[in-house]
């Protein structure tokens, strides 16, 4: 294990950083063992061990080091762990160190030091932005080969090998005030809002609250170090019952009406499995008020070869020193146009580093910070440009030169200064991603050289405020003051109030005017020597942006997509504004007129698994089961999904194929007793004096005169004239009906009817109530089923005269109060026995026991399909697909000729629904009776040796029918009703089957078996 050579010794007054030097943590990177401390990130620990080379850039495979301190990091992308828990593309700056952490660099082969991909950097002239649009087109056949090479070179990390062992969950929250970001502004806002007793959620992506204050050692609040104020505020917030503190929680998505998503890392930092605890939790937050306190991000400077490892943002360099006690370099050089850069010089000098120089873009930098650095005897090169950096796997120095007054060129020759760390400060961007996601309008602030929030999108529906750095505020004093004001106003707007807390006294270094140069001038024009990186991750240079503008890709959205700037995993956090500045200059216009690209969620990449939550596996979607489900499972049923229902498909006995089982079930149904669980059919209670009139309007046939206790089959259309559902409705009383629908159509039919009642015919006195699951239904059929029922029911006269077809009797079956319907979907004598669901399995068991001697045989949906097809009954959803009319189905008999209106009537008389050659329902018999056509097969009149050929229609249902002793099929074919007796062809892959068109009824055409 290397000693941590780059740790600063703890400073007598400034301390040793927020790490715990008493608890070392062992970890490995690319197989090499290192150690860090509790409180380190992987990045700070690597730097502590003098590891700067951490990755290879996406396109040119240039060696890359750590650039940032947190979410903005474009380079240090890490593959964490191995096997099923492996995770690609994590930012080392955001991985909290834990014992045994196993990290690897990405996008390099064979190793980080010696990467073959670096050849791209050597041949970089051949790979300008968008080169791939201009080549790989010849010869056309080679494209897929070229693409294979591109795909294997692309991508950064690798997906894990197997399924994710960790669990995730969601959590809904409804705070009065959501505060995003727990820096000075956010903490102040939370304090002000929390003290009113309002419901407050304070979320921050870091493990500790405090934001930028954690990385500064030159700020005092109320006379004490800023960290003490942070600790005090957090302690008070923790004591408030209605305040929820969410560290390690990144609010990453801002949607309509103050609905925000945040992902909490619950156990990632522990690096061990915690039982009964999700790895991450997705907070779904509906906030009445939102306060955005998301701070600022520092901009890098664009100069030649500004991507050498060891060149990083100034606040990052300072953060490693102050927060983690790490010397990112022993001989730092600062390049800045902003006073803030001087704080980094002071921080390093105070800790014993030898600050080589401060290169200041401004000709006459002045102010307290500048004076402090001067007094330290540090060389300040005013009005200088960093013309370029040099070094291979580590920066070794920069070339500097005096600039011309306007900063466009060099006034004198360059000279070289050696250093081992370059801390660059290109200015600061308010973090406006969430504000922009909420569709707020930004405006360009010339003073700041940055976009700041301007107009909130929907102040009434989604009230919101931005404070602190996120609003472009420059000082901690103003940030805290604004935070208090915004927090209190937000709480008051939701009805809670309290005295406004006094703003604490903040002592902080003042800073003066800054200077922004989008590209630092060097000896050669941009693009002629070296690479001026704008987007470090996607290897986009200033020259690429110039090329895009030159080729006519002028809109910033075109520039972004053509050069892919800002499209990496850092989403342009360090590159977007620099790119805008350069594009505006290239087009000879200003940034406001170039505009910005749209900020899209998430703020930082978010785990797909946390969005899935616990709605996966067994809980992905409900499986609806009937009251008799336990029996079906116990008796070896094979199941079929029907919508969300799980229905018995067939009941194979030992060794039976599906075909054999279905044949046995169908024969038993017509020769002994078949029993089907029909509980899943939709059932609707229809009540009210206008119930019959309502049915008259909903169905195609007549309902007014249906007798009490009588049943009638109904076909339901949409107003387009196409069939949507069917079922049997029974009149229970003058004003009371019991309607059934198909299993799949239950919700749609209830919705369709309820919509017409509420919005078209509110005057009708009709109430609908779903009773689908009140009743369990066992349907028995076959010649012996009356005898079976008679054994279990002695209070209903089951004789045909007393209990005719399509009628209903109430009585007791197997001791259970029941409604018995003479409804038959098989064409056999049939009784559908409805009992309250709680007695469903008792009824089924009683029928099975008593039915033993009658040869009772359970049958599933497959046999039900065969039996009904034998009788020519259609199934809505199988014979129909939303474009079929009653006439097409040969069901003119059910369409009332006398009613002036019903839903669908006017639709039926539209021209294309009246054509004689529409696709119409027919039966098909194959020449070879054992040949079963595949459902969906197409029927052709003129057979061709090869496709294409004109198709007449398709097979909707097709089975082997044991009862008919042959295969049977139904089909919808053009002009079908006029084609009875014709012979047609069904061309399948490999063979063609000859078929004869018949009536779609294959068994007991006269219906003689119906009454047993």
């Amino acid at each position, binding site marked *: 294990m290397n000693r941590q050579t780059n740790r600063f010794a703890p400073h007598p007054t400034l301390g040793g950083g927020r790490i715990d030097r008493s608890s070392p943590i062992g970890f490995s990177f690319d197989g090499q063992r290192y150690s860090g401390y509790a409180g380190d990130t992987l990045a700070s620990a690597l730097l502590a061990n003098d590891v700067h080379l951490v990755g290879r850039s996406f396109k040119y495979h240039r060696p890359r080091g750590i650039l940032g301190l947190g979410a903005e990091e474009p380079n240090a992308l890490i593959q964490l762990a191995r096997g099923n828990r492996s995770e690609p593309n994590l930012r080392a700056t955001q991985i909290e160190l834990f014992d045994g952490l196993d990290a690897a660099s990405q996008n390099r082969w064979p190793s980080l030091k010696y990467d073959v991909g670096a050849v791209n950097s050597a041949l970089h002239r051949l790979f300008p932005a968008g080169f791939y649009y201009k080549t790989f087109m010849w010869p056309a056949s080679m494209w897929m080969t070229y693409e294979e090479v591109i795909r294997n070179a692309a991508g950064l990390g690798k997906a894990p090998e197997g399924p994710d062992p960790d669990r995730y969950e969601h959590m809904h929250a409804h705070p009065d005030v959501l505060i995003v970001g727990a820096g000075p502004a956010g903490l102040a806002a939370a304090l002000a809002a929390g003290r009113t007793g309002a419901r407050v959620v304070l979320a921050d992506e870091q493990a500790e609250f405090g934001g930028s204050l954690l990385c500064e050692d030159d700020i005092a609040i109320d006379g004490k170090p800023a960290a003490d104020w942070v600790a005090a505020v957090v302690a008070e917030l923790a004591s408030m019952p209605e305040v929820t503190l969410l560290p390690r929680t990144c609010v990453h998505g801002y949607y309509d009406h103050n609905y925000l998503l945040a992902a909490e890392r619950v156990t990632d930092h522990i690096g061990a499995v915690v039982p009964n605890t999700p790895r991450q939790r997705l907070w779904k937050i509906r906030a009445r008020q939102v306060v955005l306190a998301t701070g600022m991000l520092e901009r890098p400077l664009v100069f030649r070869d500004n991507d050498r490892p060891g060149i990083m943002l100034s606040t990052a360099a300072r953060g490693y020193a102050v927060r983690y006690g790490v010397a990112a370099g022993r001989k730092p050089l600062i390049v800045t146009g902003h006073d803030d850069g001087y704080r980094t010089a002071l921080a390093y000098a105070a800790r014993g580093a030898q600050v080589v120089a401060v290169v200041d873009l401004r000709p006459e930098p002045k102010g307290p910070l500048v004076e402090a650095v001067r007094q330290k005897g540090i060389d300040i090169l005013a009005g200088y440009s960093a013309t370029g950096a040099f070094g291979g796997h580590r920066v070794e120095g920069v070339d500097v030169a005096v600039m011309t007054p306007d900063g466009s060129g060099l006034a004198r020759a360059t000279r070289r200064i050696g250093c081992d760390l370059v801390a660059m400060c290109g200015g600061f961007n308010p973090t406006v991603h969430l504000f922009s996601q909420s569709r707020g309008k930004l405006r360009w602030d010339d003073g700041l050289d940055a976009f700041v929030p301007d107009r909130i999108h929907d102040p009434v529906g989604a009230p919101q405020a931005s404070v602190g750095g996120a609003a472009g505020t420059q000082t901690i004093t103003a940030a805290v003051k604004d935070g208090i004001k915004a927090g209190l106003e937000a709480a008051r707007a939701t009805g809670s109030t309290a005295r406004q807390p006094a703003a604490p006294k903040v002592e902080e270094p003042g800073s003066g005017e800054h200077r922004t140069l989008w590209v630092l001038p060097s000896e050669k024009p941009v693009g002629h020597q070296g690479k001026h990186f704008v987007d470090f991750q996607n290897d986009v240079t200033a020259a690429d942006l110039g090329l895009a503008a030159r080729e006519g890709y002028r809109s910033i959205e075109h520039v972004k997509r053509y050069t892919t700037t800002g499209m990496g995993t850092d989403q342009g956090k360090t590159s977007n504004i620099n790119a805008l500045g350069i594009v505006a200059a290239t087009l000879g216009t200003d940034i406001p007129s170039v505009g910005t690209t749209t900020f899209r969620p998430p703020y930082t990449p978010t785990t797909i698994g946390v969005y899935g939550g616990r709605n996966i596996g067994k809980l992905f979607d409900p499986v609806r089961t009937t009251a008799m489900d336990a029996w079906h499972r116990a008796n070896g049923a094979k199941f079929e999904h029907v919508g969300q229902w799980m229905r018995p498909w067939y009941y194979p006995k030992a060794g039976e194929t599906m075909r054999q089982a279905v044949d046995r079930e169908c024969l038993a149904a017509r020769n002994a007793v078949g029993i089907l669980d029909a509980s899943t059919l939709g059932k609707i209670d229809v009540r009210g004096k206008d119930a019959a009139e309502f049915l008259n309007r909903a169905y195609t046939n007549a309902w007014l005169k249906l007798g009490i206790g009588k049943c009638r089959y109904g076909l339901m259309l949409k107003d387009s004239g196409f069939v949507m559902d069917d079922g049997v409705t029974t009149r229970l009383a003058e004003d009371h009906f019991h309607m059934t629908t198909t299993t799949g159509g239950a919700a749609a039919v209830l919705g369709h009817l309820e919509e017409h009642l509420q919005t078209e015919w509110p005057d009708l006195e009709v109430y609908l109530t779903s009773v*689908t699951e*009140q009743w369990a239904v066992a349907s028995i059929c076959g010649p012996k089923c009356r005898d079976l029922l008679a054994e279990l029911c002695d209070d209903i006269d089951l004789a045909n005269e007393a209990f005719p077809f399509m009628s209903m009797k109430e*009585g007791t079956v*197997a*001791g259970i109060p029941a409604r018995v319907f003479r409804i038959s979907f098989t064409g056999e004598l049939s009784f559908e026995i409805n009992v309250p669901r709680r007695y469903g399995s008792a009824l089924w068991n009683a029928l099975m026991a008593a039915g033993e001697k009658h040869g009772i045989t359970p049958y599933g949906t497959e046999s039900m399909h065969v039996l009904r097809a034998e009788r020519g009954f259609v199934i809505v959803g199988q014979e129909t697909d939303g474009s079929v009319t009653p006439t097409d189905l040969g069901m003119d008999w059910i369409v009332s000729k006398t009613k002036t209106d019903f839903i669908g009537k006017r639709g039926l008389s539209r021209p294309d629904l009246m054509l004689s050659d529409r696709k119409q329902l027919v039966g098909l018999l194959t020449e070879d009776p054992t040949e079963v056509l595949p459902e969906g097969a197409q029927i052709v009149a003129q057979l061709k040796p090869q496709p294409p050929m004109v198709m007449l229609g398709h097979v909707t249902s097709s089975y082997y029918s044991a009862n008919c002793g042959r295969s049977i099929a139904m089909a919808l074919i053009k002009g079908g009703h006029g084609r009875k007796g014709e012979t047609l062809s069904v061309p399948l892959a490999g063979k063609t089957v000859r078929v004869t068109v018949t009536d779609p009824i294959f068994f007991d055409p006269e219906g003689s078996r119906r009454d047993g």
Partner: protein
Amino acid sequence: MADAARKLPEARSPLAGHTGPAGGPHHAGLVLREATGLSLINLRGEAGKSFAGHVETVLGAALPTKPNTATQGDGVSLIWLGPDEWLAVSEDGDSGALCARLEEAMTRVHHAVVDLSDNYAVIEVSGHAARWVLAKGWPQDLHPTVFKTGACSQGMLAHAQIVLERTDEDAYRLFVRPSFAAYLWDWLVDAGADAGVRIAPS
């Protein structure tokens, strides 16, 4: 319905055989129990008319008219489901008799009285972590100041559509279609893992 003189066979509740044995850690934050034997009657009618009076006389509880509230009577609670729809929940298990009395009172009034005692499974969710666990799958605000005792609401708990009623400080009652009951029970047990789950005898 024929009288129940004959011995009724065994009735199975929607979650029979699924909840597993009663028991679990005493300190469990989540306590689950299937409530059985209740009469659940769906009522539809016009709140402002005599329909409301008939309901009150028969059930002994005033019809709630404020959306998403429930009123309690002696052994009965009336849950608002819509501007002209309520669910009466009675501890008197003879739902047939209750329906008959209601029907008789309302012969001349536009109404619907439908016995749904088997159309719902009823799951009682209680314990100090009840709200925390429900909030994992229930998008509406459950804060005590917003969803007070006696409040009710309809919506989706995970992927099941339910009626949710707050019956006490840390106690809720869930009404869900029986075919979704097993799914919802499994979801609750899974979501309660971090709080500890105890199954109370039903």
